């Protein structure tokens, strides 16, 4: 019965629902989890990688470069990092759009784009696909972790419908219900960025399918201020992630290190 209202993104069902949007959201809830937490002196993003395996060629991944070769966490502008969950190809397209939007703002106003404005730019695009022309909506949710002089550190979430909202700590992807309740439990006001890192890693270790964390399953990034009060984004490379996990006592035991997870056959990550 629902089929009649499925094929078009722009058609409401008799119950007033947009099925394509809901399916897109469903696709995201199978994707690798992305967790973000905001503190007074920084924002933290962590993401679970699903496409792993020892045959996967990671030599092209530069980690720290502007382009980022990560799968889940990207630098959108010098003051904003983004975490994605959903269809990878859609995400790449949105990331490219976000970077262009940020550069256009820099060109027009000679300042880094405010975080909320960038979220709005993407949501305007995403919303368009829920209304016009029989196209498929973007199957991507994003977390935006950023800094601007107006509201300092911020964390936003946007979904395929074009809705966005600001958060102290939130997550997208598989097991987001569990992660959200854990964040709710453990998040405290006025935590420092070090506390936020610990919180995010702890929640990550409890919600991920695998029992122990390692750099081949995890992406991690922080956004803080440098000595000149300029935003400084840091996307951790695998060695740094392992060092961080080790520091927090979440690292793998040595005998488990070589066990690689199989590559999932579907498109979601």
């Amino acid at each position, binding site marked *: 019965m629902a089929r009649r209202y499925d094929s078009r993104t722009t058609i409401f069902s008799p119950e007033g629902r947009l099925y394509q949007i809901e399916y897109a959201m469903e696709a995201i809830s199978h994707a690798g989890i992305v967790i973000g937490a905001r503190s007074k002196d920084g924002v933290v993003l962590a993401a679970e990688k699903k496409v792993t395996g020892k045959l996967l060629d990671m030599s092209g991944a530069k980690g720290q470069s502007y382009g980022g070769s990560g799968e889940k966490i990207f630098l959108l502008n010098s003051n904003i990092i983004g975490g994605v969950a959903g269809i990878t190809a859609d995400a790449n397209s949105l990331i490219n759009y976000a970077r262009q939007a940020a550069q256009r703002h820099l060109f*027009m*106003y*000679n*300042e880094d784009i*405010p975080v*909320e*404005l960038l979220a709005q730019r993407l949501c305007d695009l995403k919303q368009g696909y829920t209304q016009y022309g029989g196209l498929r909506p973007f199957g991507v949710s994003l977390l935006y972790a950023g800094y601007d*002089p107006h509201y300092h550190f911020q964390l936003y979430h946007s979904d395929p419908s074009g809705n966005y909202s600001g958060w102290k700590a939130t997550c997208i992807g598989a097991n987001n219900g569990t992660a959200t309740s854990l964040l709710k439990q453990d998040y405290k006001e006025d935590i420092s960025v070090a506390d936020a890192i610990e919180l995010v890693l702890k929640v990550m270790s409890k919600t991920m399918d695998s029992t122990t964390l390692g750099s081949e399953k995890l992406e991690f990034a922080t956004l803080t201020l440098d000595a000149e009060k300029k935003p400084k984004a840091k996307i951790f490379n695998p060695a740094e992630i392992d060092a961080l996990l080790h520091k927090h006592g979440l690292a793998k035991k040595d005998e488990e290190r070589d066990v690689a997870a199989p590559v999932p056959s579907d498109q979601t990550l």
Partner: protein
Amino acid sequence: MDISFALTGKGYVIVAADTTAARSIVKMKVDEDKIKVLSPHLLMAYSGEPGDTVQFAEYIERNIRLYHIRNTYALRPPSAASWIRRSLADSLRSRRPYAVNLLVGGYDTSTHTPHLYWIDYLGTMSEVPFAAHGYGAYFALSLLDRYHDPEASVEEGLATLRRCLDEVAKRLVVTPEKYKVKIVDKDGVREVEI
């Protein structure tokens, strides 16, 4: 024939502009306000080709306001000035360029610093401690080189401005009789009598 001055001090910018609206050799109006309040902490003195000035200033005013409404916060002075400059630079290479000179003064509430930008009709922009447009510039700039103090209080700043106005009154053949003076600081914009 328009004359405008601006100078920064400790946590404020003073912007002054004469109030004459003239056509040829005739004064048409003597209480024209040529300083627009673009946002709660941003001022813009404009001068140049009559007609272009008001048209361009209102275009800028409305667009800065629109940004404020859309985003709930206003553009910060450096960004606003960059955008205004870009508008003029684009206009320069259009079919009919605006011939408007600007002094943009503002107080950045996020870094707590005053900013002053000298912008001309070509889109030339420079952040400066003090600035002037029109014939007043030839008399006042050297005077400000000598007397301007970036750490001066508002009273001292106004006294320095007073010197500039007196010098123009003394040496310029056609002297405007009245100036409008506005100050922008952490509390926003206010007008002062001088």
